[in-house]
């Protein structure tokens, strides 16, 4: 059998080498695709000494891939938070802004002090009303900005949920292809690459963990354990809100019937864009809203009118708002029409009292230089107040300090998330680079490998020609 066997061995070597060259060509062809992994034609020795390709496999590193996936999720979460906070700070103004509520509160305080010093000057009174109107406008627009940011986050969650459902559908198709190919012994490397690419896109939207079952069947859970994909794609649902005001509570995101993000979340997502957006929508912005509400509430309370005789209850003065104890008061804060010259009112009512009627008049003598009530108001502005702990900052401070603290809080949040984004994205870069080094396609390697294969091919064909000439010798014996 020896000569025929040598023929057979050389032939099998040619076939195997051709398959290896084919795999290498595919590598070179997809060198530009970052999701493609290196394909390897695995050869083995046959019982009679030949070589044959048992399968096409691919370079993979599960540990590095898992790291890359989790870094992607963390980065996406930090970016969602940072994006929202950037937007919010742009809208409401940062620590250096002259149009922020805090800056305008300072201007209003000095206008009040001016009026206290020259109560007889009606133009100073008008200036005070203008400063008060500017302040209420700034507070109102800050409240609007929060609602805008929350609505944007809500829409982004909705978009993200749509993306997730699309990706899960695609994942199902690739996963089926992988399972079918695995059982049929076909080349599944391309389907595996595509499936991995879909999974890494999915990990941007929400943190995931995976389990691989027999037949390369993959099951995806959220990082909190809710089932995203198991044989079939599970439904991810979310009802977006069309309007956000100070009292709106956003809806939760449900994965397979379990709330994973939002107010009802029981298995809360730890990372991914949706986790960031939900935190932005339901926590950070709501905290900032509480701070604004506390400031508005302090303004309404600080300028309340008192009945000198003590019979009538205290009433809202310069600053007024409906339902001052409900959330969202900052959006409803306004200057009373009775003191606004533009609406036919008189700023003198601030000095004298009586915005709410004659019973509340403090300046009963009617003197033009009366400033006692203004002194009281001014003292109320600079007194230390207690604020709700839900504001997440100081609970006992003057209004001015509280507003400065609020500005600092927002800017601090933004800073901290900016740092998070920087560190997470550099982690992601490292993880991606490490993965790419381990599983990616290196053109230099491929060229060298192809040269080797070329030599093997030449040697095998040489072997065939040698055996052939041996046969020729045998046949020439007679």
């Amino acid at each position, binding site marked *: 059998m*020896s000569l025929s066997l040598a023929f057979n061995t050389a032939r099998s070597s040619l076939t195997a080498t051709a398959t290896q060259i084919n795999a290498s060509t595919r590598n070179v062809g997809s060198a530009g695709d970052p999701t493609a992994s290196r394909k390897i034609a695995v050869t083995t020795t046959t019982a*009679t000494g030949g070589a044959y390709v048992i399968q096409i496999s691919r370079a993979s590193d599960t540990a590095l891939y898992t790291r890359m996936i989790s870094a992607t999720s963390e980065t996406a979460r930090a970016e969602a938070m940072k994006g929202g906070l950037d937007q919010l700070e742009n809208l409401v103004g940062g620590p250096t802004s002259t149009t922020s509520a805090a800056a305008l509160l300072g201007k209003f305080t000095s206008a009040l002090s001016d009026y206290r010093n020259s109560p007889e000057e009606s133009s100073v009174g008008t200036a005070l009303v203008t400063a008060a109107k500017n302040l209420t406008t700034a507070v109102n627009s800050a409240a609007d900005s929060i609602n805008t940011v929350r609505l944007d986050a809500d829409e982004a969650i909705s978009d993200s949920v749509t993306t997730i459902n699309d990706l899960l559908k695609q994942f199902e198709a690739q996963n089926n292809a*992988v*399972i079918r190919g695995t059982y049929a012994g076909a080349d599944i490397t391309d389907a595996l690459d595509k499936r991995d690419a879909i999974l890494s896109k999915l990990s941007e939207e929400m943190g995931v963990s995976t389990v691989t079952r027999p037949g390369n069947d993959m099951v995806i859970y959220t990082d*909190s354990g809710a089932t995203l994909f198991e044989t079939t794609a599970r439904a991810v649902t979310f009802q977006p809100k069309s309007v956000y005001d100070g009292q709106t509570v956003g809806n939760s995101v449900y994965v397979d019937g379990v709330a994973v993000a939002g107010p009802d979340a*029981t298995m809360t997502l730890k990372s991914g864009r949706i986790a960031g957006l939900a935190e932005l929508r339901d926590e950070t912005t709501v905290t900032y809203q509480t701070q604004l509400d506390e400031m508005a509430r302090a303004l309404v309370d600080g300028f309340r009118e008192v009945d000198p005789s003590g019979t009538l209850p205290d009433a809202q003065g310069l600053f007024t708002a409906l339902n001052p104890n409900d959330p969202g008061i900052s959006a409803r804060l306004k200057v009373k029409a009775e003191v606004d010259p533009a609406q036919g009112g008189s700023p003198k009512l601030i000095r004298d009292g009586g915005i709410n009627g004659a019973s509340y008049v403090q300046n009963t003598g009617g003197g033009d230089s009366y400033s006692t009530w203004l002194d009281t108001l001014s003292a109320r502005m600079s007194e230390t107040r207690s604020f709700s702990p839900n504001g997440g900052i100081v609970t006992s401070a003057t209004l001015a300090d509280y507003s400065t603290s609020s500005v600092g809080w927002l800017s601090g949040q933004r800073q901290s998330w900016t740092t998070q984004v920087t560190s997470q994205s550099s982690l992601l870069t490292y993880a991606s680079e490490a993965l790419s080094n381990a599983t990616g396609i290196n053109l230099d390697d491929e060229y060298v490998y192809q040269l080797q294969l070329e030599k093997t091919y030449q040697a095998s064909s040489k072997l065939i020609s040698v055996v052939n000439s041996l046969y020729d010798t045998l046949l020439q014996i007679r």
Partner: protein
Amino acid sequence: MSLYGMLRTGVSGMNAQSNKLSTISDNIANSGTTGYKRASTEFSSLLLDSTGNQYNSGAVNTTIRYAVSTQGASNYTTSGTDLMIQGDGFFVVQDSSNQAYLTRAGSFTVDASTGNLVNAAGFTLMGYDISDGPASVILNSTEGMVPVNLATAKFSANPTTEGTFAANLPLGSSPSQAIADQKSSLTTYDNLGNAVTLDLTFSYAPGTDAVVGPPPVAAVPGTWTMNVSDRATGQSLVTQALTFDTSGNLSLADPTIDVPIPGGQTMSLDIGNMTNLNGGYTPINPTANGNAASLVKNVTIDKDGTVSAIDSKGQKIPLYQIPLATVPSPDNLDPRAGNVFLTTTDSGAIQMASANSGGAGYIQSGALENSTVDMATELTEMIVAQRDYTANSKVVQTGSELLDVLMNLKR
């Protein structure tokens, strides 16, 4: 007698060599035939009684041997229904008159008219039908075997009967701390192949914390309960209290729970690997067998001879089991046209064996067994046979010439 004896001996030698040349020509002709086993000739001398100083030349007897037990080299192909036996076994095939034969020629293709797997010589591959459960194998007979037919790969569904689920359940900082329900789902199939999504809900009933005292009160750990319910109706199927030992491993006498799937079978769900350690809720190893009804997309043949259909969902449905037959003396099998063999009294009766277990070898899909003929051996043998034939003819020629001399003695 001696001169005539010499002529006859020469003729028998020529006959013997022509037999040898016949086997060589067969071998050379079939050097590319899949599963062909090389034939060889063995000679034995036939002596006549010699008395005293008288020698009676005898003759030569030819015996044809078939090297059936020699394994041919593998030749890898791209067809999944090309089969090769690595080992001593034989495929059982039958011809159109339902006569069973053994063969090692495994170049099977699906016959369009019948759907049977038929090899190049037209023999149909036989196997056991295992689509409805394991086959009953009669060890010394081909009874119960049916043609392996891929056209009947049914549009079928299998209900779920077995499954596993394991997860780590979170641990609170103290027994009294409330923990939200943890929930995962698992896809199973009912008798008609409908997907039934089961919700697995793990709920925690808080215990009480230890009190330092006095009087000291020991902590009462909280308890986890697992509830399996049908997603579609919300109906609870089974509830199981889970207890964990001090290492956080599940301590249940019987860690499998029976889940009656609505419209389907009772699934025995193994939850033995559940843990309760200080970590988040992490499901691991969720599996359930069974499959939805779908079309057959592909057919694979495993090492152990299981012919399975792969449906469009990637599920593997076993259809046939291809057994391997062995005989005590394969070289004594009776070869027939088409690289098939019949058992003889010399070869012994067949023994049926499963592939990849026992001594019958395994089945390799996508490969064929080359003929065991080596061209160089055959050519050298041919040269030798030709010389021997010529020498024998010289003997006859010499005998004839001597007879001529004898005839010329009398004029």
